């Protein structure tokens, strides 16, 4: 308990906790869960956009999309490394993802159905992600905070890229405008759900905030997201699919309709539109790649032996 108090003092003083420092088991566990889930989200998050790489409409768009999905793989890599400093290997985490012990963000269980989804995902999903992630640059665990600095820099680029795709669509022909509105209609509520359930229903929150693993509440971030996004939608000439959306002079915020939390819990518990397909795509990549990973390991061992023999 003295250790625990000293730990909290460090946190409160804004010091970073580093891998070799003492930390409470709960802190370590919570971080592994959070960083692991974040890493898995980057990896699974490659799939909905990867779905359009082979159908990108121009060479430029294809290159942008490839670069973006590649960045996500890179983010996954940083985050797995950050999690590894907490004593869990990437392979272990992958197995936990595949057998359902670890989760990924619910948003990636929604399908990408037209090219406009490449815009909507960048604009809204990366937008919501940034809103979540910017404060995490100040999180108490050093490796995580540093990983988030790199991640955030690239994410804001992705968000702009998504917004530009939407711009092209709303400035395009009637079909393209229709696609853009349709993508917004499908993506709006799932994006709102990305911040997690309302504060009153959220577990883990207060301890995580005390530990500075979590910096803002879900509802604070969601409100910030709505406030920033509504004018962007207006600028695009698109209608947010919420008849209850109104500017509230008193609060200085937009009032909005809560997402359907039953849908959220369905998705979380495995019944989202794509849960089964997403996990089986990852499972297949993992299984199909086993021979290659084994071969790489075997070759490295042979090489090491040969080098040793040559010395």
């Amino acid at each position, binding site marked *: 308990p003295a250790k625990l108090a000293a730990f909290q003092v460090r946190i409160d003083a804004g010091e970073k906790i580093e891998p070799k420092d003492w930390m409470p088991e709960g802190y370590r566990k919570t971080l592994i869960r959070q960083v692991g889930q974040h890493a898995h989200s980057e*990896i699974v998050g*490659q*799939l909905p*956009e*990867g779905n359009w*790489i*082979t*159908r*990108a*409409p*121009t*060479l*430029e*768009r*294809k*290159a942008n999309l*490839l*670069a973006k*999905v*590649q960045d996500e*793989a*890179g983010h*996954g*890599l940083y985050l*797995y490394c950050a999690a590894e400093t907490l004593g869990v290997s990437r392979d272990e985490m992958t197995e936990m993802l595949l057998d359902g012990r670890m989760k990924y963000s619910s948003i990636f269980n929604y399908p990408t159905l037209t*090219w406009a989804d490449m815009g909507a995902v960048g604009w809204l999903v990366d937008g919501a992600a940034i809103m979540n992630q910017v404060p995490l640059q100040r999180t108490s665990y050093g490796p995580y905070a540093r990983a988030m600095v790199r991640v955030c820099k690239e994410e804001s680029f992705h968000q702009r890229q998504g917004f530009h*795709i939407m711009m*092209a669509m709303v*400035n*395009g*022909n009637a*079909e*393209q405008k229709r696609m853009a509105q349709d993508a917004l209609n499908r993506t709006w509520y799932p994006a709102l759900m990305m911040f997690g359930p309302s504060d009153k229903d959220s577990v883990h929150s207060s301890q995580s905030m005390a530990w500075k693993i979590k910096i803002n509440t879900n509802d604070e971030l969601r409100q910030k997201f709505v406030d920033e996004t509504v004018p962007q939608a207006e600028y695009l000439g698109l209608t947010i699919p919420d008849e209850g959306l109104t500017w509230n002079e008193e609060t200085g915020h937009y009032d909005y309709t809560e997402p359907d939390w039953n849908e959220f819990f369905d998705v979380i518990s495995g019944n989202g539109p794509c849960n089964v397909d997403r996990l089986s*795509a990852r499972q*297949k*990549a993992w299984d*199909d*790649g*086993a*021979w*290659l*990973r*084994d*071969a*790489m390991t*075997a*070759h*490295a061992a*042979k090489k090491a032996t040969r080098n040793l023999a040559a010395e």
Partner: protein
Amino acid sequence: MAGTSNPTQIDGQLFEFLLRQGDNVLVLGHRTSEWCGVAPALEEDIALTNTALDLIGQTQLWLGYAGEVEGKGRSANDLAFLRDVYDFRNVLMLEVPNEDFGRTLMRQFLFDAFQVPWLTALCASSNQNVADIAAKSVKEAIYHLDRSTETVIALGDGTEESNARMQSALDYLWPYVGELFGEDDVDKAMHEAGVAPMPATLRGDWETTVNSTLSQACLTLPDSKFAHSGGRTGFRHTEHLGHMLATMQTLQRSYPGAAW
């Protein structure tokens, strides 16, 4: 140097030549991009996506210049997304399906081992645009070759299974390599005009690289000398290209004239 050809002929042949360069990287770039997000390991995924990005960048240069030479106002995108199979000029090897990651890497290696000496030679092209594109591309190709060489060796000299997979990839691809060194009127015209060497003159270099790498990879060169052809002239592609184009071109074909 242009011999008896008149300027229009030369332009037509230069256009063909440029399509061959551009379609090779377009088609291979597309196949490579199919791995994005589903490769066997994160590091491989990132590396291969990087290759795909380079290839698509090179496509923009070659096809962009091809469109200029043609002079009908077609952009690189028009050429990529609005031609049907028989107007494609890539070698057949680059359009066959990825199958497993082993075949994908073996193909990349066999092609890289050609591209490095080929693009190096093109840096001295009498055509300044060709020389410039080659100079930019060759740096990337050298990097690709380093990487694909290393991976082919690791996978050939890995486990029994990985060796068998790489050997079967090599056996499958072997009949397609001869087309890289094909020679026809277009090649001759480019050679005469000092635009490019005859591809066949690179075979020695290519074999040196390939033999050395495959021997380190504990793989056996197939002894067949048979070579498929039909890709670089467009006379006869494989059935795989049409399926690739149906996917690749779907938006441009479905919404003609739209800007994206």
